[in-house]
């Protein structure tokens, strides 16, 4: 199989960031919360990307922060994905009151803007990583549910599924042998989309002060800490912002490639 350049680039960048996250203590020249320089120093040989609002090394924080950002986004999209896909397939295959019940529940959940729900819930609960992952995962699972149900419903009316039903195959067999393989490609692409959404969502939450809390750091929070320097041309806030964008673009490129090998496209950042 020939992989196009854009997908290679995406894969490469994603791999690079994931590896940097895994080996962050080895790569970062300074500690996460170590004050090593003056406020907002420019990039230099000593501080590759300059220093931040209280004189910490931005490159080190970027590496450590990347680990947190990627971990939280990955965990919450995995949660969203498994919950959403499971219930979505179930609804599509079982139909009837299970489908109606689940769909209406999801409708109610989706009718309230998720950023606002997240703000309300997170302003009350203790702000731990677990809480964040749970809140984001559950809120986001509604979108995965919609997609998996739609994809599964499309497949369920296909001739080969009808044929399997006529052959007298069971529902479990149909889900795993007929629907899942045929739904795999859009779902993988969707996973990419959900992951990007989670990265943007956690960054937004941190930016609003309700995401990752110190002493941990993440990219959105780093933008928040340094944003006041932005309009004076200080690069401190731009660096993590660019990191968020690069990660999102890289994963998008991979997802696009996966998607180009299938026929449907769903998802996005919205809601």
């Amino acid at each position, binding site marked *: 199989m020939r992989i196009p350049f854009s997908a290679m680039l995406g894969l490469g960048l994603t791999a690079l960031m994931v590896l940097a996250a895994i080996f962050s203590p080895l790569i970062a020249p300074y500690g996460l*919360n170590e004050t090593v320089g003056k406020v907002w120093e420019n990039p230099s040989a000593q501080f590759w990307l300059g220093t931040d609002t209280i004189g910490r090394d931005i490159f080190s924080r970027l590496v450590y922060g990347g680990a947190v950002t990627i971990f939280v986004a990955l965990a919450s999209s995995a949660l969203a994905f498994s919950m959403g896909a499971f219930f979505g397939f179930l609804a599509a295959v079982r139909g009837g009151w299970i489908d109606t019940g689940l769909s209406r529940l999801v409708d109610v959940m989706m009718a309230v803007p998720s950023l606002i729900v997240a703000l309300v819930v997170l302003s009350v609960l203790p702000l731990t990583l677990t809480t964040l992952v749970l809140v984001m995962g559950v809120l986001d699972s509604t979108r995965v549910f919609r997609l998996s149900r739609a994809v599964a419903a499309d497949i369920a009316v296909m001739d080969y599924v009808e044929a399997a039903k006529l052959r007298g195959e069971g529902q479990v067999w149909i889900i795993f042998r007929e629907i899942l393989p045929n739904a795999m490609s859009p779902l993988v692409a969707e996973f990419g989309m959900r992951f990007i959404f989670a990265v943007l969502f956690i960054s937004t939450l941190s930016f609003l002060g309700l995401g990752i809390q*110190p002493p941990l750091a993440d990219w959105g929070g780093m933008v928040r800490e340094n944003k006041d320097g932005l*309009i004076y041309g200080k690069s401190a806030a731009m660096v993590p912002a660019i990191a968020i964008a690069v990660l999102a673009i890289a994963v998008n490129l991979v997802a696009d490639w996966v998607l180009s090998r299938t026929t449907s496209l769903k998802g996005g950042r919205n809601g």
Partner: protein
Amino acid sequence: MSDQMKDLVRLAASGKINRRAFVGRMGALGLSASVAGSMFGMVAQAQAKKGGVLRAGVQGGQSTDSLDPALAASDVPFMINMTWGETLVELEPGGVLSMRVAEEVTSNADATEWKFKIRAGMTFHNGAPVTAEDVVATLKRHTDDKAQSGAQGLVKGIAEMTAEGDTVTLKLAAANADLPFLMADYHLIIQPGGGVDNPAAGIGCGAYIVKEFEPGVRCVMEKNPTYWDTSRGFADTVEVLSINDNTARTAAITAGQIHMMTRVDPKIAEMLAGAEGVVIERAAGPGHYVFIMQCTQAPFDNNDLRMALKLAIKRDEMVEKILGGMGSVGNDFPINAAYPLFDDAIPQRAFDAAKAAEHYKASGHDGSPIVLQVAPAAFPGAVDAANLFVASANEAGIPLTIKLEPDDGYWSNVWNVAPFCASYWGGRPVQDQMYSTAYLSTADWNDTKFVDAHFDELMLAARGELDPVKRKAQYSEMANILRDTGGLICPMFNDWVEGRRAEVGGWVANPAGTLMDGKALVKCWLEA
């Protein structure tokens, strides 16, 4: 007058130099500070221009805000109320009172009975005259439990209020030499009929009349044509805009969308000062950032442990990193040079790892983690400050750790509840008020649970003491008691750091509060 002086006067007249710099440079030429100060005022005032729209960008507005002065708790309603409203007296820079609704204040010999003569000829925005009855009704409303007033504690000590002709008489339960200062409180804005019928109507007797109020967005006010004081109210229209985002606020002042702004982040103050047409104003005020230990809760019921923590904090580093140098170190009592009768001879406490370790050992603490509860809402940079505190305490061998709390509910669930947490105080105009708010053993907000009978006695004695020398000695003793045995760790006092456009004339920083203690829109004007 020398040529240099003339030059300075010219600079002052064109608004190119602020009061602080003017007084400083005049001082260098041999002029006393008070003469230079009043000179600055006169020179600047003579140049005052009328007309235009003056806009202030203020942080801390919400769409839940109200115009009821009793409920004002953040900068936006404070600023709005101070622009349409007027109090009996006002606190001027230097800690002196100026007469506003009251024309004259007198007391009997032992400071238990105070008389306020109401200024003749003042009218409310609805046309009604301002009477002594209105003043009494206003004060009464704030004593009433139902008003939920932030000033309830201040007026509680007034046993009897009467209005007779143009005079209001306040009889106190106990002597209080500072009573007039309490009347400058921003909640105690005089309202027609005391504002009992409609407290949030925004009708007062100030220099501007409320035209439009959209909570959390803006308040538009127009000049009061019948206002009595010609040295105030120059702009035709003034607006208070609620801009909570720091970056948007700074961008707005550099773009000229607003003429003055609150809360410049110290870190960007220098860069903002470099922007064309923007001037940074600083005022050292009584506000301070604190860590509070409850003296009744283990392990903080042990004074050696309290002392160990007090010695284990790097105050200079905090001022440098948390306040960006725009503040001063604290000395573990809530008073600084911004207060009258402050004793500057009390030795400054500094970081001392060895002594801290010694006290820690003497406390017999079991070595389990000492938990400091903190939320970003405690004060700007609170979490960073707590991290610095932990680092320096660990250096002294004290097992201090942080527990992060959510902003939401911090003031109801953590502050005044948890044994050790971060907080802030905005300060009060006089020492008595600060101490009686939070350090008297029976105070509502005694957040350090500090109980010391001698301290209480001294405070009540000082309150009725009319001899300033004796009073200063009493306050000094109280400060020392709190510094050496209290539950307060006060590492820093924060300056007001604010921005204004160069074309704003008449700016005189007032340490008592933000934006000239809320009077910037009333006292300033627009050049050209």
